[in-house]
């Protein structure tokens, strides 16, 4: 018995050590060179047909970026400015010069997001979002950080598999999914993707996380 357990433990240890983890310092070297302090959240670039996705997703990035230790310009305040300056379409900036945001806001970096999927499936009980994140320097224009997340939130309710039970759970699932806001999936996507964003000045991890493991460029997950 002992031998079996030891063998199993060895196998687990070997398998987990096979994939040498990429460190954050190696994956995002520009973040450690430039050390941005202030981040402006750009209005999301919406590639889906759901027009509401842009406005609602826009504000969800504020809290997780603050918690990462950055100074983040309040999206509720910058939204008005972007609209006034007819800059509410971030498409024109994603590859262009960002110097203007340094000049007007004092931002060191701009966070772009591209919403590729934003959908609800009431029968199956699934909310799906797919978002690509690109953080670019306003000084050098280089990409400091980029990652994509495809997150599915499972809102299904299981009321039994046979006959009436199945019908009840199908209806309950549809109702629960319809009532769950898609923005919840957006928030979860931020949490998953930004988990390996190097920490900013106000975090106790600032300057200490370069040797931490970085995540994959594309992260896919289903959460309950």
């Amino acid at each position, binding site marked *: 018995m002992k031998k079996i357990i030891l063998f199993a433990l060895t196998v687990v240890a070997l398998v987990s050590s096979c994939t040498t983890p990429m460190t954050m310092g190696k994956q995002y070297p520009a973040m450690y060179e430039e050390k941005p302090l202030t981040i402006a959240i750009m209005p999301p670039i919406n590639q889906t047909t759901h027009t509401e996705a842009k406005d609602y997703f826009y504000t969800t990035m504020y809290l997780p970026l603050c918690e990462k230790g950055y100074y983040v310009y*309040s999206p509720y305040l910058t939204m008005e400015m972007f609209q006034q300056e007819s800059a509410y379409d971030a498409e024109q900036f994603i590859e262009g010069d960002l110097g203007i945001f340094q000049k007007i806001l004092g931002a060191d970096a701009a966070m772009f997001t591209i919403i590729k999927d934003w959908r609800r499936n009431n029968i199956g009980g699934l909310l799906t979002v797919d978002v690509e994140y690109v953080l670019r320097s306003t000084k050098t224009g280089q990409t400091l950080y980029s990652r994509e997340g495809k997150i599915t939130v499972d809102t299904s309710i299981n009321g039994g598999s046979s006959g009436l039970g199945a019908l009840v759970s199908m209806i309950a699932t549809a109702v629960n999914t319809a009532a769950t806001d898609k923005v919840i999936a957006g928030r979860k996507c931020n949490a998953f993707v930004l988990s390996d964003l190097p920490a900013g000045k106000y975090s106790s991890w600032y300057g200490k996380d370069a040797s931490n493991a970085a995540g994959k460029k594309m992260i896919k997950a289903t959460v309950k």
Partner: protein
Amino acid sequence: MKKIFFILVAVLTLSSCTTTQSLYSWYNYEDATYQYNKKSTEELQVKMLEQYKKLTDKQKGTRGVVPPGMFAEYGYQLYKTGKKDEGLSFLKKEIALYPESEKYISRIIKQLEK
């Protein structure tokens, strides 16, 4: 045999100990602002302002200070509801706490005072 199990349990318990603590307390900020953004009714505005008050009064996060942008947002909302002086003083508090915000916040103050 029991020892191995004990060690495994101990390892699992220890590894779950490291919970990341929040830098700031957010209370119900996300939902309150989101709901108001969706539907700008007076009732939802009151709820949102309550959250701003809590956020700027009581911070229990590890930093113990108000999160970036929050004094500015609160100040801006107060100004819009007619409490102009109070609003401006909150906007100035943002600059005092976060000097890196000066460029942008002074711009907002200038626009409001026009």
